């Protein structure tokens, strides 16, 4: 083989490498582990229920709210604009690069794990609701202090003797009884 042929072969292999991007699927995620750790340490991974409520009210552009809870729970109660995607279906879903994705689960653990999955898949603008649906019910729908956001979302003020929403199902039923 002549030197010219070798040079052309090397350039072709390198051009294809530039298109391929990474030497193995998943390598980018491994490379990104340090960046993920920094995002978690700097608390740039989650939103609070009140922040999310403001994003929805202010119509934050390209916001997608992904509810990971079971279908029955989603039917029972959902955050406005939320869509349901099962956790096992999430890796196969494609999101546009400019979308802000907020992940919601019952308590927050599954959403936090899904956050890692989406970040590892290369999505930059991903958040999870810190305390899950329980925090949304506690802080937005049924807070101890009246708040304009509570009124906006049709919630009610929590009375002194009422407990917080540790059990999401029971809290939703309470909410239903109150007629919202």
């Amino acid at each position, binding site marked *: 083989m002549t030197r010219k042929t070798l040079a052309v072969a*090397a*350039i072709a*292999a390198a051009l294809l*490498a*530039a298109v391929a*991007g990474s*030497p193995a699927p998943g*390598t980018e995620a491994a490379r990104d582990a340090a960046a993920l750790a920094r995002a978690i340490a700097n608390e740039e991974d989650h939103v609070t229920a009140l922040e999310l409520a403001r994003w929805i009210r202010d119509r934050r552009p390209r916001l997608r709210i992904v509810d990971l809870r079971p279908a029955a729970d989603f039917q029972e109660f959902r955050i406005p604009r939320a869509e349901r995607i099962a956790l096992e279906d999430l890796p196969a879903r494609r999101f546009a690069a400019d979308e802000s994705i907020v992940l919601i689960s019952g308590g927050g653990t599954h959403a936090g794990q899904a956050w890692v999955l989406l970040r590892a898949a290369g999505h930059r603008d991903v958040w999870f609701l810190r305390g899950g649906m329980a925090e949304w019910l506690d802080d937005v729908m049924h807070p101890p202090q009246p708040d304009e956001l509570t009124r906006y979302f049709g919630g009610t003020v929590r009375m002194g003797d009422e407990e917080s929403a540790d059990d999401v199902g029971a809290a939703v039923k309470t909410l239903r009884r109150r007629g919202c």
Partner: protein
Amino acid sequence: MTAPLFEQGAFGATGALVAAVVIGIAFGATLERAGLADARKLAGQFYARDFTVFKVMFSAIVTAMLGVFWLGRAGILDVSMVYVPETAPLPQLAGGLLFGAGFVVAGLCPGTSCVAAASGKLDGLAVLAGMFAGVLASGLAFERIRPLYEATPRGPLTLPQWLGLPYGVVVLGIVAVAITAFALIERLEARR
């Protein structure tokens, strides 16, 4: 079976040592065939008289880099398991300068000194002796040079991480630099 074979448990420590001997002999034979057992050729690199070292080493880098990338892509090599030496700019700069000075004085580097010694050259043996003396001396003086040794640690750092670029783009960049450099050197050599 995927590589790296040793990390994947395909063979034990004895197998790894046998593989090291086989690969080492092949490496030495290739260096000898490329003419790198000759101190004059190596020193010629520093005076820009002879570019054999640059051409051999840079083509080896390009070949290995493309091989690692595409073997990884084909699922034969798990790139995440390949050992990456740690980066520490300050001690490596100091060590590199000292190494370079020794290289140009001796006309041989560790690998080529073994090749030169194996092919019966006395200067190769002398460089080998000097190298072992240096290893011993730096081992004995390690407590004194420890602050320098431990300065500016950056951990295992690769070019794609440092530059924040995709792996494949860095591969393309290095191949482009290599091909351009080879073409320029050929022109320079043709003119002489």
